[in-house]
């Protein structure tokens, strides 16, 4: 049954510049995206290269990146064709454009129209240095997602993780699609539990570097030298920033027993938030800033609890699932992801922040450390479902999770970066031309 009441008028969310971008702008482009888990059927034509050879070689790769971005957004079912191919009869929109390379500059003219009417939905130009061609394609993809869903895609985000090399574990970061993967540490030690700052520029992580026990460090996402945040006696682990970036929640055992503390952003002024003989760890600061989720075995086995930011009012999150751990807040703060122990390892669930409505996301093998994408449409997690541990993304719609490309590294402990600065401002820029920061004007 078609739920026409649920149909979304794309034009409602369409900013003024789209109408300006096309002379004969339609008054209304209606695409039905009602129904849970429903994906828009979109067809990608090849980004027809201009005459020069450099653009031709790039265009094929750009086609792949664009199609994958759209598919991974979980908003679309993607079909593809070479230039001039015919879209499948049931496609609801078509994506195309032209890619040119000249003087070290890449220019992408992106076009999206509805089908079968071929009325323009999006027409925009992106420019940047040729080294930034992937980012240019990602921007187009994210704008397409924005146009159809009201929220930009996340194809320009990064994933940090812990990659194992023999007994050593180093910190890595890469684009969501595996491009640009690089090690941030070369300590030949154990790095663990990376967590981004809310602007994505910094990462907190735990490391055994320098000998002794686990200490907390901060490192720039771009790399460089790690700075010590907390090296107090005992455990210094499991850190995350408060939403305003002014505080750090973490686990310390300097008072003899693992407890949750808040520190200032430099690691000073520790304030103890829990006070219990049991194990308390894995704090996760709510996006509102008002609450902190954490794991405690005060009830006999590990369970996720919530408390106020000053440590008061601690209460167990959910009774629907036994042995829970690894809480992670959705970006809107309305749900939490967590893991629940099984005989084989862990399943991942989400539930509302009041603990109700627990929903199984993934099971099979051991699925650990879930972290939300900045748009809340996906979870990244570590799993041994394919044999050795790797990173997977679930679109929260019951489909089989997809494995991320970690270059063959055994990978655990993922963290999903926020969108880079500027990508969310697409709506603010009313012109038809976008240049990529860092690209020459």
């Amino acid at each position, binding site marked *: 049954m078609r739920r026409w009441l649920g149909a979304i008028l794309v034009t409602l969310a369409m900013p003024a510049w789209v109408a300006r971008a096309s002379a004969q702008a339609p008054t209304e482009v209606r695409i039905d995206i009602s129904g849970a888990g429903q994906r828009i059927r979109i067809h990608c034509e090849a980004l027809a290269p201009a005459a020069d050879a450099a653009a031709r070689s790039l265009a094929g790769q750009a086609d792949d990146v664009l199609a994958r971005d759209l598919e991974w957004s979980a908003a679309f079912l993607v079909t593809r064709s070479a230039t001039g191919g015919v879209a499948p009869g049931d496609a609801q929109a078509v994506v195309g454009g032209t890619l040119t390379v000249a003087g070290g500059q890449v220019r992408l003219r992106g076009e999206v129209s509805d089908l079968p009417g071929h009325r323009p939905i999006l027409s925009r130009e992106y420019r940047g240095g040729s080294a930034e061609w992937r980012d240019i394609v990602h921007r187009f993809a994210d704008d397409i997602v924005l146009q159809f869903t009201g929220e930009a895609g996340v194809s320009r985000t990064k994933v940090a993780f812990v990659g194992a090399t023999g*007994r050593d*574990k180093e910190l890595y970061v890469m684009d969501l699609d595996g491009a640009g993967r690089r090690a941030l540490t070369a300590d030949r030690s*154990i790095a*663990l*539990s990376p967590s981004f700052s809310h602007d994505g520029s910094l990462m907190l992580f*735990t490391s*055994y570097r320098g000998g*002794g*026990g*686990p200490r907390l460090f901060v490192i720039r996402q771009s790399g460089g030298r790690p700075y010590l945040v907390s090296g107090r006696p*005992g*455990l210094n*682990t*499991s850190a995350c920033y408060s939403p305003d970036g002014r505080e750090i929640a973490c*686990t310390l*055992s300097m008072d*003899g027993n*693992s407890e949750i503390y808040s520190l200032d952003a430099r690691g000073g002024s520790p304030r103890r938030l829990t006070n219990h003989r049991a*194990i*308390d*760890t*894995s704090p996760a600061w709510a996006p509102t800033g008002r609450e902190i989720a954490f*794991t405690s*075995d005060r009830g006999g*086995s*590990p369970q996720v609890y919530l408390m106020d930011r000053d440590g008061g009012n601690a209460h167990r999150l959910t009774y629907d699932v036994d042995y829970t*751990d*690894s809480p992670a807040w959705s970006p809107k703060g309305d749900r939490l992801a967590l*893991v629940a*122990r099984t005989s084989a*390892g*862990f399943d991942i669930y989400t539930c509302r922040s009041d603990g109700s409505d627990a929903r199984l996301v993934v099971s099979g093998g*051991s699925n*650990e*450390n879930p972290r939300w994408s900045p748009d809340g449409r996906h979870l990244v997690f570590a799993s041994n479902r394919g044999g050795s541990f790797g990173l997977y993304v679930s679109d929260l719609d019951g489909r089989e999770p997809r494995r991320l490309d970690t270059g063959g590294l055994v990978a*655990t*402990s993922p963290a999903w970066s926020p969108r880079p600065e500027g990508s969310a401002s697409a709506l603010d820029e009313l012109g038809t031309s976008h240049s990529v920061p860092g690209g020459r004007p």
Partner: protein
Amino acid sequence: MKLPTPYRIVLTLLLAGLPLAGCVKKPPQPPPAPPVTQKQESVPTPPPVPAPKEEPAPAPAPVGSGDFQPVFFDFDAYTLREDGRTALDHNAKLLRDNPNIRIHIEGHCDERGTAEYNQALGERRAQAARDYLAAAGIAAASMDVVSYGKERPFAEGHDEAGWQQNRRAQFVIRQ
């Protein structure tokens, strides 16, 4: 392969005498399977042998980390078991006899559970061992604890035998 019967018996006895610990598949050839050598992989919690070491000890060898006995734990637990206390009694004697030794007590966990929780659990295990030794009169200053959670497993096996090996407090002499 056909051998005269006496040789076959000798061969069988030889094979039977081989230590088969690391050898999972039994050799296909000898027909009469020796019943004695089919020892299954030992049950996870081997009671630590007191190991009296009654050699005359011509020159007292320096004590190494390997002379300390590991302390094993149950799943998701940090209370000492009987075998753990026996191991700690042995370690306490070593420390009393060698008052200059300072030790790291490492806490370790099996692979089940999250990295973060296991770091806390491993610390509890190391602390349980330290507290027992302190109660036995070992100077607290000669011991420190460090938790490795599930990050430095001793056994790679993904079954209870391997997991038991990895749930331990391990003693390492501080240089």
